[in-house]
């Protein structure tokens, strides 16, 4: 085996990873330290968590959610996991196995909810029954169940594994459309309010590549395969575009998103308070079916449950083959 030529910026030992945005290489130990520091910096700057919080981590079995759970435990926080079985065929079965194995190997508590078992539908069926793209039906279902589980379980903070690439891609999409309402809400902390738990994103200063590297270095097995229903979605296209820019100009993704938080988010917040934007100020009231906050008579989740649970189950393959053309 041939030794790597590059050296760790900190200790001058053999490097395992190059991070062009930091113009540096790191060994395993100092790469992990860098990740910890970035998470602590995000938590401190945005008042995300304290060690007194009861934290619920939304876990998918993928690298980001397992990494953020691992990082929080490593940093001394109390954190349980929540896995929602989405019924996306073998992909969901495999991802559940990774989440369970991670929890059991570390003696952590993992709460599980099954869409099919508890609500009578799965994501492929919901996509077909509601004529939504699968990612939309999936997102609405997960957000509702994350919120409900956090509130029902008495957790003070709900953590998700959204990373810098995720947030930069969402920002990119919102900016392309100049969607002021969404831009104003794209914050790493959403405070608790009536019917919603506090939600935080501790990985906003770390990239997907860094989170995958964290898992590899820490020996965390995660589902590497992409969700079969995500292929071709806009989010992936935005990430590819941003990565092309990042390759030419390292640090661009971090500057785009973190400078948005620093320079633009306060402007949007002030405009929202002053009532000068189109930001959603519609009054929320309780869903007539489940009691969750909504602007309509019934919430989007109950609407999906009503339609999808009455629909004949739809195989994943059918939605993958036809679903995107049947919006």
């Amino acid at each position, binding site marked *: 085996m*041939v030794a790597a*030529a590059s050296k760790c910026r900190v200790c001058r030992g053999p490097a395992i990873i190059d991070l*062009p945005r930091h113009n540096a290489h790191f060994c395993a130990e100092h790469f992990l330290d860098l990740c910890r520091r970035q998470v602590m910096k995000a938590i401190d700057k945005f008042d995300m968590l304290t060690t007194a919080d009861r934290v619920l981590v939304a876990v998918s079995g993928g690298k980001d959610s397992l990494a953020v759970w691992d990082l929080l435990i490593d940093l001394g926080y109390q954190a349980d996991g929540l896995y929602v079985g989405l019924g996306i065929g073998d992909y969901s079965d495999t991802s559940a196995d990774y989440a369970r194995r991670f929890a059991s190997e570390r003696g952590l508590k993992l709460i599980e909810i099954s869409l099919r078992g508890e609500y009578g539908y799965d994501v492929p069926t919901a996509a077909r029954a509601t004529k939504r793209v699968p990612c939309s039906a999936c997102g609405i279902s997960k957000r509702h169940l994350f919120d409900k589980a956090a509130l029902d379980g008495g957790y003070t903070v709900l953590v998700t594994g959204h990373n810098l690439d995720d947030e930069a891609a969402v920002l990119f999409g919102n900016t392309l459309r100049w969607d002021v309402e969404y831009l104003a809400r794209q914050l790493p902390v959403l405070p608790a309010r009536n019917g919603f738990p506090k939600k935080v994103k501790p990985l906003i200063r770390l990239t997907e590549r860094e989170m995958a590297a964290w898992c590899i270095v820490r020996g965390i097995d995660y589902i590497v395969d992409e969700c079969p229903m995500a292929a071709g979605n806009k989010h992936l296209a935005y990430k590819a575009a941003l990565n092309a820019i990042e390759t030419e100009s390292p640090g661009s993704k971090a500057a785009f998103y973190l400078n948005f938080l620093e320079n633009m988010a306060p402007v949007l917040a002030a405009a929202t308070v002053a009532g000068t934007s189109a930001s959603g100020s519609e009054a929320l009231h309780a869903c007539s079916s489940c009691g969750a906050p909504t602007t309509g008579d019934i919430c989007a989740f109950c609407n999906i449950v009503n339609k999808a649970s009455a629909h004949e189950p739809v195989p994943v393959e059918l939605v993958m083959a036809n679903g995107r053309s049947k919006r």
Partner: protein
Amino acid sequence: MKVLLRNPAREIELAGRRNVNALLAELALPRESHLVIRNGTLVPGDAELAADDVIEIRPVISGGS
């Protein structure tokens, strides 16, 4: 060298040695969205890969929002 690729999983054989960046460029895989693992250990872009190495190239991009 034997190279394992993902999404979809497949294996290819390449003759000769080259470094990680050259391997990714040859396969038209962006550095920013992939990690390279040799025998279970991450290797940086300028690491030289030997002809008999077993390499995994792991994509790191997830699609959900």
